[in-house]
């Protein structure tokens, strides 16, 4: 137990996601949502700075969660959607700290990612990774598949397809190949892979690959046209077809850079924060969602501190039914 006997202001105290208690892998029980930082950026080929992602997302979650902790009724209400967040029961949410990894040891980091998600999942926990670059989604999905002992579905919210050929100039181990590696490793069947928020110019070969192999693409415009709720329904249906567990990956670069510039890719015409949060809220209702990562948050590239705040809020929306009784 920490020393403090009373609530501290949001800027004080030791940093953890949503001020959750620190825990070890062995503390994870059935239904525990376990947050794990992965400050790895060894596969990033673009603007640098995602290694600061985990710490910044934790920090950014404090102001929001302070309001819940300080609330007399022990609850927050979203005045537009009506969603209510309640004070979590102890150990519903824990923070495992950061994964041991060196940016210069890609294979070591990948093995550690797979092992961590597999262990959390086997203990009955719900793993949440704070990235890190989006290549880590590949070993993390592998870890979930290993943990549940079967193929998983994947809902990938990103501006990119990341379906680059292993023989592309960057080789097989880089952010632009993360989904391709997941499919090639057979962790996920192409028909269970759904990409939401794709926009702008994409290498033609990746576009062809998605079409030829049956990867579902819901573009940023389609998300806007059909709305987050309908898009979430369709994504859950496709990703969950024959799969008991669905992995959700959020690349913060999906958001229009006018709103969140703290990421490697600059995106014009991306998803707006309101639609992203509504999408996460709609996805959160499915009990098949079994893991989450939030990647590509580079706080140093957003002087307004808004990208990491949005990332923290998106996580809270997705885990709300499991942690906050929403």
């Amino acid at each position, binding site marked *: 137990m920490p020393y403090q006997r009373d609530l501290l202001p*949001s800027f004080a105290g030791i940093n953890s996601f949503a001020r959750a208690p620190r825990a070890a892998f062995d503390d994870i029980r059935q239904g525990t949502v376990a947050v794990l930082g992965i400050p790895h950026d060894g596969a990033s080929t673009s603007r640098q700075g995602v290694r600061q992602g985990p710490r910044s997302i934790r920090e950014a979650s404090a102001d929001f969660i302070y309001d819940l902790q300080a609330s007399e009724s022990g609850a*927050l209400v979203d*005045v537009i959607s009506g969603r209510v967040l309640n004070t979590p029961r102890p150990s519903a949410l824990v923070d495992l700290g950061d994964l041991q990894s060196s940016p210069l040891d890609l294979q070591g980091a990948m093995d550690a990612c797979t092992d961590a998600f597999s262990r959390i999942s086997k203990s009955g926990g719900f793993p949440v990774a704070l990235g890190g670059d989006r290549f880590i989604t590949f070993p993390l999905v592998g870890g979930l598949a290993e943990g549940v002992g079967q193929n998983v579905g994947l809902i990938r919210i990103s501006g990119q397809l990341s379906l680059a050929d292993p023989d592309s100039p960057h080789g097989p181990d880089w952010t632009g190949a993360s989904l391709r590696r997941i499919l090639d490793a057979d962790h996920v069947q192409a028909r269970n892979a759904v990409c939401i928020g794709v926009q702008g110019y994409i290498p033609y070969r990746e576009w062809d690959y998605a079409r030829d192999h049956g990867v579902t693409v819901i573009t940023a415009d389609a998300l806007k046209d059909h709305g987050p709720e309908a898009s979430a329904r369709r994504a859950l249906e496709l990703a969950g077809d024959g799969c008991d567990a669905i992995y959700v990956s959020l690349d913060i670069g999906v958001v229009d850079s006018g709103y969140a510039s703290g990421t490697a890719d600059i995106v014009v015409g991306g998803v707006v924060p309101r639609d992203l949060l509504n999408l996460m809220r709609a996805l959160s209702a499915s009990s098949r969602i079994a893991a989450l990562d939030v990647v590509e948050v580079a706080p140093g590239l957003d002087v*307004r501190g*808004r990208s990491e705040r949005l990332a923290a809020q998106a996580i809270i929306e997705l885990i709300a039914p499991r942690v906050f009784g929403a």
Partner: protein
Amino acid sequence: MDLPRGDLEHLRDGMVAICGVSYDLSCTSRIGSRFGARAIRDSASYYAGAFSRNDLVEITTGDRMSGARRSQILDLGDFNAYPLDWPRTEKELRRSMHEVTATGATPVVLGGDHFISYPLCLGYADAVRERSGRSIGYIQFSSRLDLGTSDPVWGDVWRGATARRILDSSALSPKNMVWVGVNGYVRREEWDYARDNNLAVFTLADIRQQGLQPVIEEAMSTAGDGCESVYVSIDFDVMDGGIVAATADPCFDGLTNVELLKAVDILRRKKAGALDLVGMNPTVNMVSATGPRLGAWIIIRFLAGDALAYP
């Protein structure tokens, strides 16, 4: 705007008094709105050159603003505030606002965090009641309700209690208090309180559904019903944080800059009697002048139909 500076004795009926309040310690997260008043003044000087040589026309509204009319606006500088002594600050702000309003001038206050609106609004109400025997209404633009009682860490000196303190003072009728632009998560007890007491709350969804103009007009008529005048408080967090993030807790949704300026146009046409602009924290984003610039332009638009307009 390089406005003439003045003291209480220079204020006359019909003039505008610009005042600053550099207090921000009731903000629970990122402080820095203590620098807001100065940043808005600095930013507004960008427009001073244009005004001094030419008259300006606002091309969307057609308002013509006369540089010569600048003498109708006086900058009084900052009201006294004592960072570590809120009771004294509260008393001083209320007294200062009372004095300024009593001259017949329209007070326009640059904050400071939102909690200052509480003594300012009451000081304004004191002066109006003294002059006319009637009460005032209150409209706040904010993503929050600010209907909390006290906070476990901040206690009673807390920005989240601003509207509640005004309400509990009984200086205003709850029927004349209006909330505009509420969105995102708020503490449930505040939401329940608003509903149980039938308070006039317009969420962002209401504005999107009913349209900005009808909502602001209804807000003004509700706030002004049976009252001598309306006090308007604009907290910068009512803005979409993607457009202006210069506030302690930028929101993921909110009014756009264009919508807020439109709202201000309606407010001044409907004769809002006092305005404060709070929660503008220039230190959150030092490299961008967007926050202070917009703050300056809100004030100018508010004055366009009145102090700055062609006679």
